[in-house]
């Protein structure tokens, strides 16, 4: 039995994608989703598992029709899906009334339920969110009921407010595979048995790293899975070390170079680190430099050697000021205050 496991597609979301790509980004989520469905057809995948948050918010009827249209074209693949916290089954949700194509099997109940696909000798277990949050660890007590040769759990959650998940409990649950959703970073929870497919496309600027889906096969009681990068774009958080010889323009050039290296299609956040020339000022708006820069965080410290400055100014205000921040931890608010204050003092120096 060969399957593809996707999660957190977030159709309808409008992810931040810089001035260059923000406009077309919502469509790209649909495109990639449609491409995964086409891939299922092409590979004659037996089962497509969707582990929640197919939609970013409540699905509109026309959106459900579009999704079902894509599913209806599958000649071989069975589709099983649950609703996650984002597209949870509200009282007035179209999920409750929509009639799906024959090959689509929603597990939309709020209590554990299962479905047996006789021709695949496979049972899929799961339930859906009826609210935005579920605090109880509701997957911990669940175990496979031996309804078919292959048993799969479709689950969504794994943080404090969305069904905390205990990897050890999953290990003992007796499922052949647990297809997880909710955490956007693809990761294995129990080796060869439980994994997050991660968001199909990254939908938040903090969804860094590769995104895609999990392709798997269960045969003879053995599950093999592999992650397949599939997303069109990637969020990259890069650090750039600035030294005191660098000018604003040279920093900008370095950034453009890094973007070129990693691909113009990706979305960037740069953190400038190190010691900059105290006189250096970045004046340009970064999105004007390149439309795929989302943010530049300036964590540089003016190239002051606090120990040396303190030594030189033992007897005056600067020394005393530095002393007053003794033992402060880099990156803390005190550290920031230290840098700002010393810079102000240094810049006003010789003002008399």
């Amino acid at each position: 039995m060969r399957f593809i496991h996707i999660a957190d597609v977030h159709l309808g979301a409008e992810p931040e994608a810089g001035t260059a790509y923000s406009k077309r980004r919502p469509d790209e989520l649909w495109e990639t989703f449609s491409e995964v469905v086409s891939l299922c057809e092409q590979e004659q995948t037996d089962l497509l598992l969707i582990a929640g948050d197919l939609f970013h918010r409540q699905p509109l009827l026309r959106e459900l029709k579009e999704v079902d249209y894509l599913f209806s074209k599958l000649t071989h693949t069975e589709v099983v899906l649950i609703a996650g916290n984002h597209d949870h089954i509200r009282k007035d949700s179209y999920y409750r009334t929509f009639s799906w194509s024959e090959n689509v099997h929603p597990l939309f109940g709020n209590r554990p339920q299962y479905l047996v696909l006789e021709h695949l000798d496979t049972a899929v277990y799961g339930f859906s969110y009826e609210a935005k949050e579920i605090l109880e660890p509701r997957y911990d007590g669940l175990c496979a009921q031996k309804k078919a040769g292959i048993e799969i759990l479709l689950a969504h959650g794994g943080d404090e407010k969305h069904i905390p998940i205990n990897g050890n409990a999953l290990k003992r649950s007796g499922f052949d595979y647990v297809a997880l959703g909710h955490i956007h970073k693809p990761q294995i929870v129990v080796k060869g048995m439980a994994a997050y497919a991660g968001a199909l496309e990254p939908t938040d600027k903090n969804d860094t790293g590769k995104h895609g889906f999990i392709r798997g096969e269960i045969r003879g009681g053995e599950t093999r899975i592999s992650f397949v990068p599939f997303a069109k774009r990637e969020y990259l958080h890069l650090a750039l070390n600035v030294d005191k010889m660098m000018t604003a323009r040279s920093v900008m050039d370095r950034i453009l170079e890094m973007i070129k290296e990693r691909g113009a299609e990706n979305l960037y956040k740069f953190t400038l680190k190190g010691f900059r020339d105290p006189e250096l000022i970045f004046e340009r708006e970064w999105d004007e430099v390149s439309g795929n820069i989302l943010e530049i965080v300036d964590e540089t410290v003016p190239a002051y050697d606090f120990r040396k400055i303190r030594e030189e100014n033992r007897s005056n205000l600067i020394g005393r000021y530095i002393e007053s921040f003794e033992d402060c931890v880099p990156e803390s608010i005190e550290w920031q205050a230290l840098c700002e204050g010393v810079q102000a003092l240094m810049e006003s120096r010789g003002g008399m």
Partner: protein
Amino acid sequence: MRIRELHLMNFGKFTDTHIYFPGQLHVIFGENEYGKSTIYAFIKAMLFGLERGKGRAAKNDTFSRYEPWENPNYYAGMMRFTCGGRNFRLERHFDRYHKSAELICEDDGEELSVENGDLEMLLGGIGEASFENTAAIGRLSAKPGQDLAAELKNFAANYYETGSGEIDLSGALERLKIRAREVQREQKKLQEAREQKIRKTEDRIGYVEDETERLQKEIADAREHLAAEEEKRRAAVYRAEQEKNTQQREDPRSRERQMAEQKRTARQRTAKRAGSILALLGILLLLSGWMLHFPTAVIGAAVGIFAGGIGCLLWGYLSLGCPSDAWERTYPKAAEQKTEEQKEPDRDAADREALEERVYKLKWKIEQKQSDLKEKQVLKNNLEEQLREEEMRSSAEKKLDRTLDALELAGEHLKDAAHGMSDRFGEQLNRHASEILSEITDGKYGRLFVEDGLELSVYSEGKRLPAERLSRGTIEQIYFSLRMAALDLMYEEEIPLILDDAFSSYDEKRLKSALKWLSRQPRQVIIFSCQKREEEIIKMF
């Protein structure tokens, strides 16, 4: 540190000029335009180097100001000095082509490296700005629009709070404020961008609400319409029933039905009757045969019973095998034949049918609109959820909050440190400056007070005098005392003190006292003056 010789090889207006400093106290006398400031610039250039400025600023920076008038590519000088009991020779070339610095210990010939900070070490870590602000002292000059007393108070206050003549506390606090304003501006920009998004979402919600309202109104209208049509239909149905009832008596169709009914019952009755008669006949024959002639009677009776049986069976078939509706199924045909007679009621039926269709269509329309309405409501809910998310401040905005907090914290620490400074350093400075002042003024002003970092006053003959009431000369003497005291407190390495026209407002007596005090200092003192007084007084020592 003591400077022994300056050799201005080619610097400003000077070419191959030697100046020697044999004693601890040295006066360089020169009228205006003599080149005193050039010599001062030369000392600084020798100690700290002289870099050519970049860009526009280069036009009138120190480098170009003292570029030699003749042969500018030979821009150089030499200085001999003593430091820590050792003698050094420092030679520098400032011009672009020969730029170099050479420091040699003349006692043992050891070559030191200016580049690696050996000179800096000899100077005890003092930088050019510090040197200018502490060791080089000119006259106290007031800023335009400010009197000298206020200037002195500013200077003293800053000195007390910063422990340095070069640190500007209020300037630093002002810079922090400017930074905070910049950060707030940035934050506002982010907020405005967010608000613009919010407005866009609100507009979308407004649009969906308008749509919702329109749909609701259309549904209400359609419902009203539907109610009217249904009323019409009810009325039509009622009328039709009424008509049916009145027609039933003369309706050819019902008459036909009645006739058929009668026929059928008659037929059934006939069959039943025939069967019973035949059976009865058979029994009669049987009885008469048994009484008269046995064999013929038996045959006759058998025939009779058989016939009776057939008759009964026939009746049974007719009554079981032909259900009543089978008959009715043929009815529409009969009705067809009589279309001409039915013109009136037929038009009614067509009307009713049209009415029926209108009702159906209305219902369908309402259903469609309701489904549209639901879609809009889901969309509206989604947009409202999005709005709530957009109303939350972004991480970038929160980060700037943190920067603002840091700036505030920096300000607090700076003020606290300044406070602690004036408590500790201020007290020392006060004491030492008071001693110097007392000596220069021959004990007339015994004690200096700086209070709250603002009010400056002196104690004189049991009275306390605010700075505003002192003469210019006295104010300058207080300034001098403060600077001397600060220099003593701050730098261990005794760097040379350079006084540039510092005594022009002093009377003879106080100048003498000041020079006397200076001559007793361990550090080298170089006085630039355009008056002969200093030179003459020193000769008398």
